[in-house]
């Protein structure tokens, strides 16, 4: 499985490289810069055709634009299919539950996630693109969530945050086994919630109220952001991006909340000081994220930093001017700030081009 995943990602990269090379060769030929000898051109073309056929049959990669568009459609269909199947299982359990005895209920609750897990692994091993295995894996996770929550209802078990740790472990396992980014998102959300709940419990709150202390999410977000630095995800497409974006959401959303509602902070200062502090941190961190993204060539970090910088700026402008400024002046000022941001980005882009930034 690992072998296939490594090669599949590499094969798709190679196919894209071949297409770019062919287009550039045509452009160079038109410009009169470079023209291959007919014999050379035929040799290159036959080599590329053979390579593309090989990749297409062995690794199921997209060898043309139409195939790429269809793949996007298949990805969307598999996402909706997986979500719909998970919801269907949920309602199926509720519909016929009352007719079944406790032993049968327990057996179904245990057997459903186990059998679907085995099926998802079997499908992941069998098919190259793993669409069906991803759907099965998501339904298996939904069944496992139902398993524990229904046990809680049947046997009147005290609710516990530990369930989130187990769900996170299972989500991560399925995500890595089936190369599924959606399951990775579920895993990250579950583990972050678990850490926030545990830290909240140590500070004396009931675990269900973990959302009342947004600062509890800072620790998991730092761990998540640093994780791709230590664990390489060469075999898994887009996992690094998911880790970084989720980490940034986990740090910026709490800062955004605390910059408006300082009274829910752990800090013992007045609300105004706490809000001011978090507004400053929000601006500084989002600017730092943009800088880091440009430096490391992380597009997702730049975009997330941009979005939150604008959010922090507009919430601050709203605070200052919405009440006393005429609305047309307020929106005019917003437009001016957008123009200013454009000028700044243009300047950065030009300086990046002149220093010969990474292509």
């Amino acid at each position, binding site marked *: 499985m690992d072998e296939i995943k490594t090669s599949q990602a590499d094969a798709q990269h190679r196919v894209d490289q071949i297409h770019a090379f062919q287009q550039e060769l045509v452009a160079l030929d038109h410009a009169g810069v470079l023209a291959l000898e007919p014999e050379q051109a035929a040799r290159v073309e036959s080599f590329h055709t053979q390579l593309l056929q090989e990749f297409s049959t062995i690794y199921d990669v997209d060898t043309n634009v139409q195939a790429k568009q269809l793949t996007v459609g298949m990805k969307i269909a598999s996402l909706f299919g997986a979500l719909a199947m998970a919801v269907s299982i949920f*309602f199926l359990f509720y519909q016929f539950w*009352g007719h079944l005895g406790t032993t049968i209920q327990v057996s179904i609750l245990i057997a459903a996630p*186990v059998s679907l*897990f085995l099926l998802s692994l079997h499908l*992941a091993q069998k098919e190259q693109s793993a669409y069906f295995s991803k759907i099965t894996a998501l339904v298996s996770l939904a069944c496992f969530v139902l398993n524990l929550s229904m046990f809680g209802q049947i046997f009147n*078990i005290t609710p516990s945050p530990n369930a989130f740790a187990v769900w996170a472990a*299972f989500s991560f*396992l399925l995500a890595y086994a089936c190369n599924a980014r959606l399951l990775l998102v579920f895993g990250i959300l579950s583990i972050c919630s678990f850490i926030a709940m545990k830290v909240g419990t140590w500070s004396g709150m009931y675990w269900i*109220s973990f959302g009342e202390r947004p600062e509890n999410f800072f620790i998991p977000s730092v761990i998540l952001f640093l994780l791709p630095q230590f664990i390489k995800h060469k075999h898994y497409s887009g996992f690094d991006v998911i880790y970084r974006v989720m980490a940034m959401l986990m740090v910026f959303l709490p800062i955004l909340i605390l910059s408006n509602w300082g009274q829910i902070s752990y800090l013992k200062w007045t609300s105004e000081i706490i809000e001011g502090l978090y507004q400053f941190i929000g601006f500084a961190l989002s600017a730092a994220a943009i800088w880091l993204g440009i430096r490391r060539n992380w597009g997702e970090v730049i975009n997330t930093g941009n979005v939150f910088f604008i959010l922090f700026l507009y919430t601050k402008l709203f605070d200052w001017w919405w009440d006393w400024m005429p609305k047309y002046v307020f929106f005019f000022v917003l437009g001016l700030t957008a123009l200013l941001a454009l000028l700044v980005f243009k300047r950065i882009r030009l300086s990046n081009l002149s220093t010969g930034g990474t292509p």
Partner: protein
Amino acid sequence: MKKYLIIGLVILLGTNLVVLGGVAYNRMGEATAHLTLTERELTLPYDAFKRRIQEFYLQLIGELRLPLTSPITRTTHRM
């Protein structure tokens, strides 16, 4: 793939074992108290959506009524 299979089964079956073990342990020995509820103490759920999806699995909500022997004092706790 084999390591995924083993870890996954350990997570799924291990969790179920721990939960059911806890349930069995909790139900060992004699019950400390019995409470019989009748329709006087039970009402149908208010939520119409819940009623619809629980067509067969009827959830009843308990209502506790105590005689007013002393004035009720209400305290709120900040978590």
